[in-house]
């Protein structure tokens, strides 16, 4: 059972979390859209396997 209708995003006002390039954030903000910048860094020292293990544990 779907929790949402797929077209919900296209009927609502956009509210965006930008993870990565700050330029993307700046250009979204310039279009008067609510946006939050996440200054992402590789977690767990960049070890993707460790990240998967932590995901299962937490």
């Amino acid at each position: 059972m779907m929790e949402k209708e797929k077209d919900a995003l296209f009927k609502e006002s956009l509210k965006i979390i930008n993870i990565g390039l700050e330029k993307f954030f700046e250009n979204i903000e310039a279009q008067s859209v609510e946006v939050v910048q996440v200054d992402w860094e590789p977690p767990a020292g960049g070890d993707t396997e460790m990240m998967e293990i932590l995901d299962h544990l937490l």
Partner: protein
Amino acid sequence: MENNMFTSIEIRKKQYYDSVFLMGENQKLGNSDGIIQTAVLMASEKNKSILLDLGITYSKIEDAGPNDLIIAIIGESEQAVSDALGKVDSILQGLEAKKTEARFHTIQEGLGQLPDANLAVFSIPGEYVPHEARKALEAGLNLFIFSSNVSLDDELQLKQKAEEKGLIVMGPDCGTSLIGGIGIGFANVVRQGEIGVIGASGTGLQEFTSQIHNAGYGISHAIGTGSNDVKDMIGGITTFSALEVLEKDPNTKVIAFVSKPLGEQLAEGLVSRIAACKKPIVCCFLGLDSPLQLPKKSDRVVRIIDEAVKASIDLLEPGSKSGNLTLTPKELAWCEEERGLWSPEQRYLRGVFAGGTFTYQSQQVLKDAGIRVYSNAPLSHHMTLADPDVSQYHTIVDMGDEFYTLGRPHPMISGALRNERIEQEAKDPQMAILFLDFILGYNASEDPVGELLDSIILAQRKAESYGGHLTVVASMCGTDQDPQDFAMQKALLDQQDVFIFNSNARAAFFCANLLRSEKVLEK
């Protein structure tokens, strides 16, 4: 290393910066006086191997991890190296000061600030995407994933999970979307209207939406699916979702779909889905030799983006006057005139492109005109360049290919890679036509034409020095609303006698016409 070189290699522990920023700064640094080579990058495994290729070795580099910053500078003097290092420090200090204003490091923290967020936009290294994107889906966010290098297995899992939750995943490797007029990623500024479009290619969507705007019409939504969605393994999950969205959307009257050819199984499923759609659909399959048969009378299948624009407008307003692909008598006369200026040696076309879809579409237009083109991204394998760094006969290179962009900024962001290639092509007295594409819009270079102008002039002068004349042809994808100032960009090219078209396909037709009467030696 030679004796007159001075090298400085520093590892800054736990200082993470995104690669696009670092590549831009690295390029500026490399242009400084007395600097031979610089590498400012994060110590990921991929980057460490790039350094090895550059001959930069240092034991501490091996121990550094993906959160550590490497600053490697090779200069002609100790002073030049120290000045460059000072420049890096002042740039990074400025950035750190800015960073203290923004305070979120995880999606959860971001959601704390914006709890009713509905879209997560990812542009982080592909290997970390599945982990972070799963968390975003769990939090009920739709996804726009710009990052590439995400495995098909992970893509499928993310899209299946999104399906269960009634969410949509645009990407991975999604360059462009326009949601209710808001551009995400590389997008042009276009008016809102009644044509909805789905695309597996970012530049394909940019060309389609810009041309619709330039023809006086508008876009309801442009939904990027990511380049792999149309593969059988993914089965078009996002394509089908996007069709559902546009079919339900009251503002969308006509739907267009722009893609390279589909996987065989997907093509079958999509034909039945399109037949059942209540709205007319235009399918543009680039490179498709035998068009699909669509049962519904109102639907159209075309092979070129301009034809998709024309068909969409015709369906919206039957009998409307929209763009024509055929060349005007004036343009045909220009071809004749230009050919008359070439030296007997000049015979080949050299395309140095930023857009992958433009590389593909141009080859298709030229092939239809009987002109075979070599490429690093060819229409068929036998036209693959033996060495992507060396053009042969007629050649169009996609400089956005990973072969060129590893550790270097993408040509849509910076002109550096294309400048080098144009200068290299200029040395070949057999080049008659230099063919370029310029892409405007959000997140693209602020001055794409200005960045290439010196190389264009150099190539023109070089051709004259060989006793010939270089014909420069360019297409410009963009609108009068884009941040780069479309008219100014065009004027810069006009001043250099460049033939400019607002359509890549028309520019390719122009090139085909320039070459048509030439007896070109081909294998």
